[in-house]
């Protein structure tokens, strides 16, 4: 019997775990009570590690397709054979058609830390530009914040907060292990507010719950700004000295109708859009502005709307004008990762005049060029990947001849799954690194067996919530079949491609040491540390002290970057793709707001449906309907219903609940059997960030059969 301290990797929250092994077999995983972020808590996903490790459905050998695509017939081949074939094909396409003919796509599943940085190194060394292999999320929100104050305040100072406002964020689904810290705020006399479309899970525990009309968060944020500006609740010292709009002259004019629509963003105006009473908006703005120690915790509910980047901007401005950004008890900017070695990435291969930055963190991309075919430069500069709409365009017009996908299942997780499948079928050669057979492996020519987080050693600093600047070592606990980590696959492939100059070792510790060459810790120290290594301080008030690396050197209330690109420098309200206000005619036929979102506390996106302990909690997909609406439509709980949008329909069971607005229905995302993306909208995207409107559309619901019927 052996116990090993490691880091969970079942989602992005990186909770520390203690694994127990017996004769090399993983028999138990529990939370590490010494982890200051979790105090030993662990979620249902992390606790299912033994079933995740030994899932008999895993792909455990390299496979080559035999027979037509989609037939699901595979032949087991050796790693050497597989990688030789992949390398030959990729080299051939690149020589014949150029770098844009190769699509390297990156999904969420292997994380955005070390595995992702190795992906960037590979792409630069090979001379190609990577692309998104999943829906945009998080980064469109990050853009709005970074162009305002140069970073993302990912450290919520729970230990000193008195007011927590969860805005489109469900901590029971993502980062549940922070709930003890969150509830401790209330035990100390603080207050918890939720703004959401569904009053369930953590939202059901709020002291105040505010229902909002989906996709209208920008209107709420603008009206709150209006209250704070007009009632003189703003922080004069901070705004006048440290932002580019002293006196709030421009913002005040903008909110009072001085915008291109001539709309005054009053609480009364916002009430008509958001469905939130003007007095509730006023009180919330008051409370946020006047509570010292107030956090605004934003989440996935804000994303997946085409106004997300401006929504994130408006919420960032709430933090700025109240002076709450980076203060004690508020949302604090912390170093999001150790300082990387810029030489790790070989950026100069893609960008000959590349200047090495002094500080390089988080996504690690510091390109300042815009690659050919890129329509979303801000997304590219933030994340170093072509946006999904650009990826799909290149597939459809045959620019891309060969694809290589890691950690993603775009054929289920993008809106318009059938159209996405057709796009991938246009490529001549598809390679997918995966743990399981998925819709995306069904169009693959080669499938490479990827390792789960339990089967790889890597440094981990990424977190979802309460971003303590600590790096821990995730340790390989077991080996499954012939599976390899995504980064190991890339190293082996690079060496087959003749890129040994950039990948001189097949030992992963070489690359970890290279990545941290500028840091003041070594791999040995990281390996020897059970509690991780701090790579930066938690400090308040840095913006006032050090300024910000943005045009003008001050916090950008007016975004100079957006203005220079022809976008609104101050956020202007605009509607989502498809709702009762933006498409009134369509709404007569499809009167309901069809919402989607995270799959629930025990699933991540489309993953984990094969894990028996988790699957038996929610064995099948369902749609949440308000009982009043159910009565009107003749639908009872457990009836089989049809949910239709102008683009498609899905069949699933109804659950009636008072936790949802009668004008909305909710379909949890990620199900194969009833995939919300069949209903969703592919074409309409945020012009700044490429964010597709994939969590909300108009729909209608009808009963197919009663419970037990067929």
């Amino acid at each position, binding site marked *: 019997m052996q116990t090993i301290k490691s880091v969970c990797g079942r989602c992005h929250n990186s909770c520390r775990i203690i694994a127990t092994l017996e004769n090399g077999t993983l028999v*138990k*995983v*529990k*939370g590490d*009570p010494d982890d200051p972020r979790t*105090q*030993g*808590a*662990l*979620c*249902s996903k992390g*606790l*299912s590690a*033994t*079933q995740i490790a030994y899932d008999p459905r895993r792909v455990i050998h390299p496979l080559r397709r035999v027979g037509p695509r989609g037939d699901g017939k595979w032949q087991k081949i050796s790693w050497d054979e597989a990688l030789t074939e992949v390398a030959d094909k990729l080299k051939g396409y690149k020589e014949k058609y150029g770098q844009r003919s190769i699509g390297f796509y990156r999904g969420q599943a292997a994380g955005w830390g070390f595995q992702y940085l190795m992906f960037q190194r590979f792409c630069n060394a090979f001379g190609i530009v990577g692309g998104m292999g999943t829906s945009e999320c998080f980064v469109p929100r990050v853009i709005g914040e970074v162009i305002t104050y140069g970073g993302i305040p990912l450290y919520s100072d729970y230990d000193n907060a008195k007011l927590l406002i969860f805005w489109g964020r469900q*901590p*029971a689904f993502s980062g*549940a*292990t922070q*709930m*003890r810290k*969150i*509830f401790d705020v*209330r035990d100390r006399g603080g207050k918890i507010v939720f703004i959401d479309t569904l*009053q*369930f*899970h*953590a939202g*059901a*525990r709020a002291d105040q719950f505010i*229902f909002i009309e989906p996709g209208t968060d920008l209107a709420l944020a603008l009206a709150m700004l209006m209250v704070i500006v007009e009632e003189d609740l703003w922080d004069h010292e901070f705004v006048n000295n440290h932002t580019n709009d002293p006196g709030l002259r421009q913002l005040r004019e903008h909110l009072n109708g001085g915008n291109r629509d001539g709309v005054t963003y009053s609480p009364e105006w916002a009430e008509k859009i958001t469905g939130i009473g003007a007095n509730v908006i006023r009180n919330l703005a008051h409370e946020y502005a006047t509570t010292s120690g107030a956090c605004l915790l934003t989440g996935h509910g804000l994303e997946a709307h085409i106004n997300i980047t401006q929504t994130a901007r408006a919420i960032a401005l709430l933090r700025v004008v109240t002076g709450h950004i980076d203060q004690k008890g508020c949302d604090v900017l912390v170093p999001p990762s150790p300082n990387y070695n810029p030489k790790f990435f070989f950026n100069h291969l893609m960008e000959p005049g590349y200047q090495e930055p002094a500080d390089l963190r988080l996504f690690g991309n510091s390109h300042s060029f815009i690659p050919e075919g890129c329509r979303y430069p801000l997304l590219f500069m933030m994340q170093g990947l072509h946006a999904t709409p650009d990826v799909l365009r290149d597939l459809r017009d045959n620019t891309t001849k060969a694809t290589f996908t890691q950690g993603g299942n775009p054929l289920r997780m993008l809106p318009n799954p059938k159209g996405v499948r057709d796009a991938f079928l246009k490529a001549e050669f598809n390679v997918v690194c995966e743990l399981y057979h998925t819709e995306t492996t069904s169009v693959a020519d080669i499938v490479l067996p990827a390792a789960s987080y339990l089967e790889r050693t890597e440094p981990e600093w990424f977190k979802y919530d309460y971003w303590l600047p600590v790096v821990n070592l995730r340790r390989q606990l077991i080996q499954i079949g012939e599976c390899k980590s995504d980064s190991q696959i890339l190293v082996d492939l690079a060496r087959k491609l003749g890129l040994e100059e950039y990948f001189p070792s097949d030992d992963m510790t070489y690359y970890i040491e290279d990545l941290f060459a500028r840091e003041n810790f070594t791999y040995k120290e990281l390996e020897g540390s059970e509690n991780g290594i701090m790579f930066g301080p938690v400090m308040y008030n840095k913006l006032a002290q050090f300024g910000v690396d943005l045009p003008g050197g001050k916090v950008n209330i007016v975004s100079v970057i957006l203005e220079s690109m022809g976008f609104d420098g101050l956020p202007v309200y605009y509607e989502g793709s498809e709702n009762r206000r933006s498409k009134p005619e369509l709404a007569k036929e499809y009167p309901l707001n069809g919402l989607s979102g995270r799959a629930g*506390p*025990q699933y991540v996106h489309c993953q984990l449906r094969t894990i*028996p*302990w*988790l*699957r*038996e*909690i929610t*064995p*099948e997909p369902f749609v949440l309907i*308000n009982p*009043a609406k159910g009565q009107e439509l003749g639908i009872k709980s457990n009836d089989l219903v049809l949910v239709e949008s102008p683009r498609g329909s899905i069949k699933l069971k109804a659950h009636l*609940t*008072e*936790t*949802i*607005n*009668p004008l909305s229905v909710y379909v949890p995302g990620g199900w194969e059997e009833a995939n919300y993306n069949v209903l969703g909208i592919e074409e309409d995207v945020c012009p700044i960030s490429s964010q597709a409107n994939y969590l909300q559309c108009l729909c209608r619901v009808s009963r197919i059969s009663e419970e037990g019927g067929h």
Partner: protein
Amino acid sequence: MLKQLAFLFDPTRCINCYSCEIACKQENALPPLVDAQPGTTGPRWRRVITLEEGVYPDARVWYISMSCMHCGDPDCMKSCPSGAISKRAEDGIAVRDAKKCIGCRFCSWACRFGAPQFGTDGHMEKCNLCLGLLEKGELPACVASCAGGAIQFGTVDEISQKVSGRAAMKLAGATDPQFYLLAAR
């Protein structure tokens, strides 16, 4: 002197995340049945129930995580014809003796909380407060993993300290269930 152990549950901290259910299944190696019979579940020694009250937009939802209540005077023990269920003298944990259980299910009909579960071997099984962990000085798996810190346990003295000034009530019932519920504020 008997130091009866009891659960203390804080409904204002439960978010229905299922950590406790899965922690329990892992610790006690409870097999899932979803593969064999889709839509069914294996034995659940602990489960979270949902209570919804009121009407939109003023509805309230409560989640309660429940397991065996280790009652002072348990119905399961009284109903068992083979004497397989007993209360430990030192801490009042209701335990079952696998060798004596005949799988008659009387206990599951008698228990008002639905705590006794039937394993794939046809024998009754249920929460024993993770006795094996307690003996090693560790917390029961559900208590250790609970995301919100909603589940606690201890003797009545320990519980009254943990309540720290908040109102708590003991679940009423003829069987004297050892379950204290913190009041919503």
